[in-house]
């Protein structure tokens, strides 16, 4: 509890928000605050200026782009995703995040920009091949999921920039599996898979960023039989260098990565 002193601004437009972020070293965007405020309460981080995005209504909402792909505003809450069925996996994963109160406030943008290794959306969006639209003083740019996550609490959204939207390409054969501490608790390891024209698989909570399991993807190829998927995933763990902590040894995480990757792929296969 008890934050350090901080400045606060509540811009009325994306442009104003970017200006505030760009003009102030130490400024941070405040989305739902369900991570950032906690970190500030621990005084583990202390931005100088909070730029509250709550009035940027354009950043909130889910849009079907017509070609099967979906565009999600960064300020879209988990509760919004749960209530929407544009892409079922998004709502299902959102529904397993923390609790009702957090889902009512927490946003997908905040989730990916904080990139806490225990978050579910970073590996999911990597598997879905999402694209991230970032706006800054120099205009807009698009970054792929593979390039978006740079480190713990670090993403391609640089100082003075803002994540505007996340675009999910067409598809629907998606799967997600996680082992958490208790039901919907802190994540130990997660795996996400998307089979839309070749498998894309990402593992969460085994490194600073979601790990794309490329070798596994190649080995699976188009043979989605359980035998092949299991055989392909058998050596996944050996390619990972996960951390050991109080909830899991590195070995246990390596093992879970393989098990959960299989489950995610098989769950994806089950989907129409």
């Amino acid at each position: 509890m008890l934050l350090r002193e901080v400045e606060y601004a509540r811009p009325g437009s994306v442009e104003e928000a970017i200006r505030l972020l760009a003009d102030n070293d130490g400024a941070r965007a405040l989305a739902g605050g369900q991570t950032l405020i906690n970190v500030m309460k621990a005084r583990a981080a202390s931005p100088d200026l909070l730029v509250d995005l709550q009035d940027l209504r354009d950043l909130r909402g889910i849009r079907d782009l017509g070609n099967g792909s979906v565009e999600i505003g960064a300020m879209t809450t988990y509760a919004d995703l749960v209530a929407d069925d544009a892409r079922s996996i998004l709502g299902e994963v959102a529904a397993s995040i923390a609790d009702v109160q957090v889902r009512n406030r927490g946003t997908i943008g905040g989730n990916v920009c904080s990139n806490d290794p225990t978050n579910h959306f970073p590996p999911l969006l990597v598997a879905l091949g999402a694209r991230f639209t970032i706006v800054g003083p120099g205009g807009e740019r698009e970054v792929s999921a593979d390039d978006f996550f740079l480190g713990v609490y670090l993403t391609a959204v640089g100082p003075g920039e803002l994540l505007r939207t996340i675009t999910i390409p067409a598809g629907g054969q998606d799967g997600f599996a996680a082992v958490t501490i208790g039901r919907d608790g802190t994540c130990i390891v997660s795996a996400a898979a998307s089979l839309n024209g070749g498998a894309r698989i990402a593992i969460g909570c085994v490194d600073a960023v979601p790990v794309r399991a490329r070798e596994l993807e190649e080995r699976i190829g188009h043979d989605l039989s359980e035998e092949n998927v299991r055989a392909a995933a058998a050596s996944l763990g050996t390619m990972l260098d996960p951390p050991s902590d109080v909830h899991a040894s590195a070995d246990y995480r390596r093992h879970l990565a393989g098990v959960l990757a299989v489950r995610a792929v098989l769950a994806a296969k089950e989907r129409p």
Partner: protein
Amino acid sequence: MRLEGTKALDAPRDTVWFVLNSPDQMAKLMPGVESFDVHDDRHWRANVKIPLGLGGLRMTIDFTKLEEREPEFAKLAAKGNGVGAIMNMETAFHLSDAGGGTEMRWEADVKIAGPVGSMGQRVLQPIVNQQVNNVLAALERQCAEAAASS
């Protein structure tokens, strides 16, 4: 937290030694150095801002060189004090010739305490790994630069 590794560097051993042991070179290795003061050839102080996405972590780090055997071995102690975190690190590296280049074997024992330590149990190791990778990448760059300019 104990870390260790081996790194092959494409520069002669003397060059690597120079990069690792001269304070101004050292300053360039570390992420987010805002100022670097050399007290004497064994004691340095760095003010750093470790770039974490949720707000940089500011820390004052005092370095003490504990042991050295030029050009093969050195051992350093670093004590960092930041608001929210205390870091104690002992690190050592061994250099040996490897073909035209140098092989560096290193080990570090890092201890982090304070609110960041408690808050960040689940993320500390990835963060430390990330910082180590940054340092090693910078080392590679600087050795290459130093080798090119010598």
